[in-house]
């Protein structure tokens, strides 16, 4: 049964491409106004899940309700109320910024007067007003991305689905984009984001699932997940390449858990400074020692034994 009031409801959701199973039984409920994330490395099944939820791709198995309707039978009616930001921009580069918004609005059945007004608002929102009548082709990557997001908002969607919204953007462009998405969140738009950046997930998501190999490995808010699957702090000890393994035995005695990476050891502990002092006392001489707070990256490492960006 659908959880009362959930916009997206999935049980045992499966996607197969031939004999390959990209999504292997995903359960998810997303409530109105929530910012929800699918976090995972490339190939985890995030995008396939997202495409099914966006009513772009039929499910191969399981149960799925979007806005209370079945995508298999009500695709057009559901899509009329969604906003989809694809991984790769697919703007009409031969049209202007304004024309892109207006043409897309017409696809959603808005009147000409409505799309004219909406295009003005959205260019304001996307900080593209001064480029209104410029062709899309020469715009920067960040501008194109903002326009793609603005275009997805043309029908005032109840749910905005963003597939890797900031992949390929420089740090400043990412922050501008996150700021825009925050505003939407404040206006009550439900956001669903896939990302393989932990900082993006922490910035944007109230709640997220960590996906790996087509399955959900864990679910919770970023802070909950960190509390559940990691320690408060992490001590990173960097060693010359290839010499890391020599020190694992000593390090294991100093922390609750140790992860071995090619160039460093991660010591999971509630008190990083104390662990660093203990490491020196135990005779470890790392190239550098750094104490930091746990992040979702650590959660992911714990859950899958791999790092997110590999």
């Amino acid at each position: 049964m659908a959880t009362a009031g959930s916009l997206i409801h999935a049980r045992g959701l499966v996607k197969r491409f031939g004999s390959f199973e990209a999504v292997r039984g995903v359960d998810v409920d997303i409530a109105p106004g929530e910012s929800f994330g699918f976090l995972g490395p490339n190939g985890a099944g995030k995008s396939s899940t997202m495409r099914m939820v966006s009513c772009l791709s039929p499910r191969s198995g399981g149960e799925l309700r979007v806005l209370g309707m079945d995508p298999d039978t009500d695709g057009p009616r559901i899509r009329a109320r969604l906003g989809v930001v694809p991984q790769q921009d697919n703007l009409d580069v031969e049209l202007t910024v304004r024309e892109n918004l207006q043409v897309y609005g017409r696809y959603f059945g808005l009147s000409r007067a409505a799309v004219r007004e909406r295009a003005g608002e959205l260019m304001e929102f996307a900080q593209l007003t001064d480029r209104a009548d410029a062709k899309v082709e020469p715009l920067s990557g960040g501008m194109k991305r903002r326009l793609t997001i603005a275009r997805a908002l043309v029908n005032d969607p109840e749910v905005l689905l963003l597939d890797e919204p900031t992949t390929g953007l420089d740090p400043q462009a990412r922050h501008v984009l996150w700021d825009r998405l925050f505003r939407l969140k404040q206006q009550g738009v439900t956001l669903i984001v896939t990302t393989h950046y932990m900082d993006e997930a922490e910035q944007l998501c109230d709640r997220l699932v960590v996906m790996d190999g087509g399955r959900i490995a864990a679910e919770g808010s970023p802070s909950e997940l960190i509390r559940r699957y990691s320690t408060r702090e992490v001590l990173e000890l960097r060693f010359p390449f290839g010499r890391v393994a020599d020190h694992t035995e000593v390090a294991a005695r100093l922390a609750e858990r140790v992860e071995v990476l090619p160039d460093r050891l991660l010591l999971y502990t509630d008190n990083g400074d104390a662990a660093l002092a203990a490491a020196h006392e135990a005779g470890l001489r790392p190239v550098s020692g750094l104490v930091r707070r746990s992040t979702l990256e650590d959660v992911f490492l714990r859950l899958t034994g791999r790092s997110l960006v590999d």
Partner: protein
Amino acid sequence: MTTNDAATTRTAPAATGRSGSLFAEVGRVLEGHWVWYRLNWRATVISSVLMPALYLIAMGIGMGSLVEPGEFTQGHDYLVYLAPAVLVVSLVQTAAGESTYPVLSGFKWQRNYLAVAATPISPARLALGELTWIALRLLFSGLVYLLIAALLGALLNPMVLVSLLAAVLTGMAFAAPVVAYSATVQGEGAGFNALFRFVVMPMVLFAGTFYPVSQLPEVVQPVAWITPLWHGTELARGLAFGTLEALPALLHLSYLLALAGVGTVLACRHFHKRLVV
């Protein structure tokens, strides 16, 4: 689904998008093209009208001066004999251009079809919109061509406007199956070159545009009969010269409608298969 209570103040208001009727949504796809076309039509007119005008001048007036009006020109000047046929051949060539690279681009390079797939408009309706747009483009190109042909004194009477409809149908009998094919192309469109070289070009030369097919060796003639161009040329000439008989007219028309119809069904299906994965 209704969002239950007023206490969830953060809930966004209902979306403004809605799906529409088949007619309305095909219209919206056309409108999308129009936004681009209204600023760029000049370039397309030059390429799709200048060429047939040059044909008409070179072949009709230049070479035509060597051709005595006779039985095979149905008693007309060669220029007049040529005019309705060049109309058909030029629309078929324009149709070939419009139904190949632009369609592949929609899926692969510009990917604007993928953007439409995320709207209420279904892939099949998008395909219908694309085909309707091509038909409108052909109609417009044909009208401009007829204007030039009239100025050259190549037209006998206004019946050639009915020939224009036959020419647009011929263009679509070619375009629809080609659009269906283009929607399945995964590579960079190498097959299109083969299509232009081994289908379009021979058709232009051997399907009865410049001389009756009956002038060809008998073994080759059936090859001309399977081309949409030959059927369209017979129709267009017959209509323009008032020599069309009912039974052949019906056969030509049926053949062209069947090609256009089957092509349209396949195009809708292939658009769906390519976009809904």
